[in-house]
């Protein structure tokens, strides 16, 4: 076993150890054992960092890959299949290593931050236990080498989010939110599960690599529609976890969880899982499946951005911005911008974690005030938070010199290239929605910054009764130690947070600067990430009828899957039909991968060509967005309230989140409850009614039978007896015992006989 594999197993199991220790013993440990959680995560991060150093910095090979597995379940010699083993294993490539470092780092920072944020909570120790299992589940997803184990960890992430979203379970809204998150995710999961079943039923394996090899070898015997279905169904898992339309509804509600949890969910663990998973199965997605994914992502990015502009809760704005950014990543995968989408996943993780932890600092300082309408002027009181929050905002909005600029631009450039390759028309919707959402993002983040940090404090403007309700709400939510302050006073108690909450903000903000990822602030493709994480070759080219040439390429793709860059070059050279476009793309792109599949090569080429147009358009969009925010909120040239009143239906549509919840409430949920009641009635009255009916009928029949027995059968017996008895009684009369009577009777008989005889003789 390679030492890196061993280390990765240690990294995986450490957070689980933290969970086990803390769930059982947190009350017996000093400080409720928070140091155990922080220490263990620190160790895990240190190991991950070592792995990162070894693989990314020292090896620096795009084709780096390690795999290890063991037999988990041995099914023996299965009839019609042969010996069958279900394996579990670990695969380590560049992406895995980067994800490991990212997840453990953010989890560590969240742990550290929570020692301040959650201090004094009733279930302080348990909180760290839950953070541990959350991190464990996510690391499991990252390391899995097969669909079965990723599904297991996938569901464990669901459990962890359930536990953490409902951490303040005494609050009804928190209990509702955790249930909603779990169930919504389950809906996505059943799709994912069906996708897994399609692939398993074909190849009797769950391993990614084996599935890819089988697909590339043309062993998929069902129709091509099933293959597309498999891709789309697997993507449904991502729709649930990464909060895409139509299953995004759980994510804003998940804000009921403590704010550090929001940071963990939104940056490092849960939502990243969906995008990561689609990246893992990227090679088996057919163009049709990719189109579904692209449109889903674009719509999600747009919808969430339109909702975010009207929300008042500081965390909800960030929640919808997460949904929107996830839409970008999914869009990116859909248009084939594999590296760019994952790049955005990474950059987004850092700045979004920074934003959430920053909002947590604000909420903490404001005594659980979350409504931006009653904030304002905080920059004077919280300079560190202000600086880091603002920088992360710029990254989210996509301003140059930030990491977010590079990754978002790469996605949008690919979206333009994609639309061109697909022949324009309807496919231009995708880049258009992408750019428009970029503008909205700049607008709502500008609004947020202004409302929170600039102007004067508006705490005193808060309506009294609402305030009261909020206090009770906060007191229930958790006792954070600062409750003695009076939040009614004008920012009286607002002060900068302590070092353990400030340090994570600074680290995360500094990880959002461009030079962490690329020396050229305008081009992420020149950085290490895009070099190390390259788009995998598709394995489904041969199943796509629209691309007749793909038949040839699939076989070469299979061999290229062995991932020897030289080998794949050689093979590409040999196949003349495809060498040209592939080389064209490679020549333009410098270090990009060389695709054997024609469509992939075209996409790569198109995305490169669209690089500068994308930069220009997106910069314009961002400038427009920020200017609008300044015009409306800083200079007050346009009154937001009056504007809202003027376009009230649109405003309400956005404010009420496009009415998704109401729609589900009125259809799916209501229908399910009605159906359950109807079936329960049917069960009690009809099914059981028939059973009881049969029983009663049987009993009545038995009674009738009894009566028949008593009156008819027994009656006949009695009647016979009666007849015999009566006859006997009559006959007895004759039997008197007197000789004279007998003589008379005998005489009468003789006389009678003679009379009979003679009358017969005469006639």
């Amino acid at each position: 076993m390679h030492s890196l594999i061993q280390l990765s197993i240690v990294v995986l199991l450490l957070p689980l150890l933290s969970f086990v220790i803390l769930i059982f013993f947190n009350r017996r440990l000093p400080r409720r054992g928070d140091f155990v959680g922080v220490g263990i995560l620190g160790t895990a991060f240190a190991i991950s960092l070592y792995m990162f150093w070894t693989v990314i910095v020292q090896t620096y090979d795009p084709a780096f890959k390690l795999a290890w597995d063991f037999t988990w379940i041995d099914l023996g010699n299965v009839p019609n299949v042969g010996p069958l083993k279900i394996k579990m294993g670990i695969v380590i490539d560049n992406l895995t290593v980067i994800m490991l470092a990212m997840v453990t780092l953010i989890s560590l920072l969240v742990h550290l931050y929570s020692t301040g944020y959650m201090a004094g909570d009733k279930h302080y120790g348990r909180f760290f236990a839950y953070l541990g299992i959350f991190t464990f589940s996510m690391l499991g997803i990252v390391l899995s080498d097969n669909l079965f184990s990723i599904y297991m960890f996938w569901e464990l992430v669901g459990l962890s989010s359930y536990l953490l979203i409902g951490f303040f379970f005494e609050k009804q809204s928190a209990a509702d939110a955790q249930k909603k998150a779990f169930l919504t995710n389950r809906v996505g999961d059943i799709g994912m599960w069906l996708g897994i079943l399609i692939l398993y039923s074909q190849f009797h394996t769950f391993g990614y690599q084996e599935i890819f090899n089988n697909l590339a070898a043309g062993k998929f015997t069902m129709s091509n529609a099933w293959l597309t279905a498999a891709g789309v169904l697997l993507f449904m898992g991502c729709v649930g976890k990464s909060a895409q339309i139509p299953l995004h509804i759980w994510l804003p509600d998940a804000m009921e969880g403590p704010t550090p949890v929001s940071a963990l969910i939104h940056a490092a663990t849960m939502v990243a899982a969906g995008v990561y998973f689609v990246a893992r199965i990227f090679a088996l997605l057919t163009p049709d499946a990719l189109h579904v994914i692209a449109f889903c992502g674009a719509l999600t990015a747009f919808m969430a951005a339109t909702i975010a502009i009207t929300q008042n809760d500081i965390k909800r704005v960030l929640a919808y911005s997460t949904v929107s950014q996830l839409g970008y990543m999914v869009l990116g995968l859909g248009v084939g911008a594999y590296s760019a989408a994952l790049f955005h996943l990474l950059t987004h993780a850092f700045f979004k974690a920074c934003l959430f932890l920053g909002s947590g600092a604000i909420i903490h300082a404001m005594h659980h005030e979350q409504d931006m309408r009653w904030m304002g002027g905080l920059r004077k009181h919280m300079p560190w938070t202000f600086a880091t929050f603002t920088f992360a905002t710029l990254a989210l909005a996509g301003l140059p010199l930030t990491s977010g600029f590079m990754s978002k631009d790469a996605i949008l450039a690919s979206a333009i290239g994609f639309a061109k390759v697909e022949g324009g028309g309807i496919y231009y919707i995708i880049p258009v929605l992408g750019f428009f959402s970029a503008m909205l993002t700049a607008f709502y983040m500008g609004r947020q910054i202004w409302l929170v940090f600039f102007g004067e404090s508006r705490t005193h403007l808060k309506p009294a009764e609402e305030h009261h309700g909020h206090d009770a709400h906060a007191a229930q939510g958790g006792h954070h130690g600062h409750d003695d302050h009076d939040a009614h006073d004008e920012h009286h108690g607002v002060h900068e947070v302590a070092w353990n909450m400030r340090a994570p903000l600074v680290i995360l903000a500094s990880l959002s600067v461009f030079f962490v990822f690329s020396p050229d602030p305008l081009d992420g493709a020149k950085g290490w990430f895009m070099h190390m994480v390259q788009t995998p070759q598709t394995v489904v080219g041969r199943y796509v009828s629209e691309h007749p040439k793909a038949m040839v390429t699939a076989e070469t793709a299979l061999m290229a899957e062995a991932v020897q860059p030289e080998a794949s070059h050689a093979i590409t050279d040999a196949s003349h039909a495809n060498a040209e476009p592939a080389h064209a793309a490679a020549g333009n792109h410098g270090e990009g991968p060389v695709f054997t599949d024609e469509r992939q090569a075209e996409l790569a080429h198109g995305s490169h060509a669209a690089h500068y147009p994308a930069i220009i358009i997106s910069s314009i969009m961002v400038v427009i967005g920020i200017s609008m925010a300044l015009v409306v909120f800083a200079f007050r040239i346009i009154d937001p309230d009056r504007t809202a009143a003027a376009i009230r239906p649109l405003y309400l549509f956005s404010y009420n989140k496009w009415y998704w919840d109401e729609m589900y409430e009125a259809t799916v949920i209501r229908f399910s409850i009605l159906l359950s009641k109807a079936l329960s009635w049917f069960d009690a009255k009809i099914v059981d009614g028939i059973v009881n009916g049969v029983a009663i009928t049987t009993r009545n029949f038995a009674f009738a039978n009894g009566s028949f027995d008593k009156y008819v059968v027994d009656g006949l017996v009695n009647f016979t007896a009666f007849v015999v008895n009566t006859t006997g009684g009559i006959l007895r009369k004759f039997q008197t015992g007197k000789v004279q009577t007998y003589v008379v009777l005998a005489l009468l008989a003789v006389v009678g006989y003679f009379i009979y005889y003679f009358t017969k003789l005469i006639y």
Partner: protein
Amino acid sequence: MLSIIVFLPILAGLVILAVPSSQKQVIRIVSLLAALAQIVIALLIWRGYDPSMAGIIAAPGGSPAGSFQFIERLPWINIDLGNFGKLNIEYFLGVDGISISMVILTALISAIGVLSSWTIQKQVKGYFILYNLLATAMMGCFVALDFFLFYVFWEIMLLPMYFLIGMWGGPNREYAAIKFFLYTLFGSVFMLLVMIGLYFSVIDPVTHNHTFSLVAMASQENYIKGAILGPDNTLWRYVAFIVLFIGFAIKVPMFPFHTWLPDAHVEAPTPISVILAGVLLKLGTYGMMRINFPLFPEVFHASLYVIGIFGAINIIYGAFCALAQQDLKKMVAYSSISHMGYVLLGLAAGNSEGMLGALYQMFNHGTITAMLFLLVGVIYDRAHTRQLDKFGGLASYMPVYAGIVTVAWFASLGLPGLSGFISEAFVFVGAFSSVTTRNIAIVSVLGIVFGAAYLLWSLQRMFLGTRKPDAAYDLEVGSDGHEHIHFHDWKGKLDLDARELVMLVPLAVIIIALGIYPMPVIGLLTTSINKLVTVLTPVVMTSMN
């Protein structure tokens, strides 16, 4: 070995018969000792079991010895019937991969049931005698390899169950008891007829006599051509299959024969519910795997689709009914119906993955549902109600209880890392891989969502939030300033006490351990499952051509 494990409880019953009924503690301890001894023997059997031997049918040459293990075989009843030949009934016990996990499960659940019966106060002596009789009959069913013997154990089981529900049950116990009794009896009458028909159709390859041996019956070459259930008598073989199937389906219970189950559960005392859900229901599907399918493989193949449909109905219908329940125990009862649907679906898949999933699901459902009913019993003991809306906020006041409930509930909804997930996953894998049941599997995955829905909803209503205004307990602020709750006439510990923990923790450990690494159980099953599938398959092929 098998005789000992079967008759130990009844031996304990005889001992109890001699103990004066005032010595309640002695009676309980005797029962517990017998149950613990049963576990020890079950573990010995587990250790001595060779998983490479297949079972299902006899070894080449017709002798079961090379195929089954721990065989005990004696002539039992031999009657000369003149022209009809001889009636040969054997005392024939043995285990293979189909039964070994059920033997372990039965021993485990019986012991936990004894612990759970500790609180029974009414007529303790009579209770434990009946309980031990039940334990013997259940174990006997799983190890009997002679159909007649199986039938005897099957019928013996009914009697104690009838009295245990009818005398120690809830307010409506007599209705529930008689419903259970008559329903099952209805099924077993047909079983008797089929059994006799089989006897006259099968010849033991070694002795050349008619036989009740299930091992001989499982090989189609032992059937006499022209006999009532001979290979060429298609009509009667179909009839026999169907009535036998109904007999077992009642026990599962399969829709539409399931309505006795919620009633029986709601009325039965906690330990009897545990036994009922943990072991008795498995006898239905065990009977299908041991008797119904291998004896009529060609009919089984023809009915795959129908069985699958019924499985799907159980899964989804059960889940929806559970969603509507207000009584926690009734909800758990419907969840049993839903989860046994997975077993049927796995059997209908007809391939190794599905069958393995079904058998493993039987084991897991046994442990998980036992836990669910024990947990229902815990709260019912304290609150004297099971209405879901009479609680709220329990997680704050009974943290240990809430923690274990969370484990059990999530096990029931099939969370990965817990054993139920693996079996359900295999059921789906099998059902989807079989072309016949693929569409049924697609529909049945809805059960995953609705299963989560009713479980999480009930969890929320009882444990999360705060105390409901009309809850079955009072809220008090203790001297330490913390809030406590108080049940009206409950004198014991508020959270789980030691006895309750001893019942629940081992089950939780098993559920978690087998969820992470299932091979200790699955490893016992695979050879037999693969054999069973082969026994069913060649006939399938010929009947298709």
